[in-house]
Each structure stands twice: as C-alpha cells, then as structure tokens.
C-alpha cells in the first residue's frame, strides 16, 4: 500500500465543491448528480432526450484533471495499485452494483443522504460496509 496523508481542509473544501456541483445540476436540470446513473444512461435504452447534457457532464469530469495540469503544471496525486485483472473485476462489480442499487457514492452518498432518503442511507451503509470488509480481507487476512 501507498501511504497517504490526512488532508481534512482540502477534503472538506473538495467535498463542498462536489456538493455545490450537485446543487447546480438540480437547479439547472432538476436531476440528481448521481454519476452511476448519468454514466449508465450514456448507453441504450434511452428514455429521454438528455443524452447531450450527460455527455457534457462526463466530459467536464474528464476535463478536470487536464485543467489542474494546465493551471499548476503538474498532475494531481493519483496512485493506482490494482493490476489489470483486479481492475476488470472491480470495474464490472462497480458498474453492475451501482446500477443494480440505483446509485453510487454521489447519488446515494451525497444527494440521497442530504435528502434524508431511507433507501440511500441503507445503500450508503451497505457499500461502506462491503468496501471496508473487502479492504480488510485484502490487507489483513493474507
């Protein structure tokens, strides 16, 4: 594992930006800023005509590190230790599970909790628990 440092101020500020973006999306489009829902709706079946907006939102996500690179001259910190096989399995599980459960960290964890949704509270507690359990098994049982 790679050691990381405790960054409460930057994390709080970054979290506030994420929340601000979620509020802006609700104001603009009336939609929940759930990234799994937005990403999954990039694929058929299409239920509405809002594909262009979703593509634009995802393009904005992808552009963010490029903007940081342009502004500061260096890439933000990112360490990915998982190998190809783990990435494929993890990606399948994340994609399948987040759609099957109607949301991920942003949809349930941010937008759902702030709306005091019981379903989102259950979903958030569940993915936190299985995420913690998975890391525990990987790091402390082997």
């Amino acid at each position: 594992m790679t050691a990381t440092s405790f960054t409460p101020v930057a994390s709080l500020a970054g979290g506030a930006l994420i929340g601000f973006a979620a509020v802006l999306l609700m104001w603009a489009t009336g939609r929940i800023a759930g990234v799994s829902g937005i990403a999954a709706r990039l694929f058929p079946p299409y239920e509405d005509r809002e594909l262009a907006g979703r593509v634009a939102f995802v393009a904005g996500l992808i552009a963010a590190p490029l903007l940081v690179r342009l502004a500061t001259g260096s890439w933000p910190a990112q360490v990915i230790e998982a190998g190809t096989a783990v990435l494929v399995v993890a990606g399948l599980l994340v994609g399948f599970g987040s759609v099957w459960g109607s949301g991920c960290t942003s949809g349930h964890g941010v937008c759902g909790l702030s709306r005091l949704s019981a379903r989102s509270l259950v979903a958030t507690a569940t993915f936190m628990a299985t995420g913690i359990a998975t890391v525990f098994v990987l790091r402390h049982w082997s």
Partner: protein
Amino acid sequence: MAVLIQFAIGLIFGLGLILSGMSNPAKVLNFLDVGGIAAGTWDASLMFVMGGAVAVTFVGFSRVLKLARPFFADRFYVPTRRDIDPRIIIGPAIFGVGWGLAGFCPGPALTALGFGSASAVIFVAAMCAGMVLARWSAHLPSLARIVAPADPLET
C-alpha cells in the same frame, strides 16, 4: 447553453473530486482500511469529503427545490421511493466490493480518464460493461422478482 452549463458542472464536480482526494484510489483504500487505525495508516480525510458535500447539498437542495421548476427543465426529477427492497442492499453490497478492490467509484473513475491513465481506461470499460449488464439482466424473468421496476435506474 444547457449543455455548456452541464459541462461546467461536471468540471466543478471533477475539481471537487481532485481537491478532496477522492480521485486518488490509494487515498480511498487507506480510508476504507479501518484495520489501519491501530497501525496509524488510516486516512480519515474522506469523512470530510462526505461531510462537506452533504452539508452544502442539504442546504442547497432545500432552497433549489422551492423553485417552481429547474432552469432548463420542465420539472424536478427527485426519487420518491422510501421502501427497502432487496435490490437496494444487494446492488450497493456488490458495488462496495468492487470499490474496495480498486479504490474507484464511478465519478473518480471517469475523472481518472483525464489523467491519461491506462488503468482508468481498463476500469471504466469494465464498469460500463457492468452497467449495461445490470440494465439488461433486469429484464430476465428469474431476476425480475427482486427488481421491482423493469430498469434498475428507475428509483
């Protein structure tokens, strides 16, 4: 215009993911590693991400939802279901395992594409396949019992 604004909102969301540390899988995994508390390697930062995001969203949503309608849409599309069905536990349980394996959830994974990371491309391709599979599998009769609406995206 609406599309440009949604690009800007995605950009702000992505900058938030980067500033907060969510876009760094090592940081996410160190947060999920509660076994690291005793060893002193636990990184509690991500609690602050959730705290900051929920605080702003809680206040912001209550104000925005008092408006007659969104700026670019005819109405608000806010989920109203309150029931706890098996799907709302099974789906997140599967998602959490994947999250713990690689340290990526959907938002940071898409943002990671902009880092030019080959690992992110592999993860996102698998993630999209998983998403399509979930929507397709919801139509299988044997699974329909635990999937109330025909499409899991319907909340």
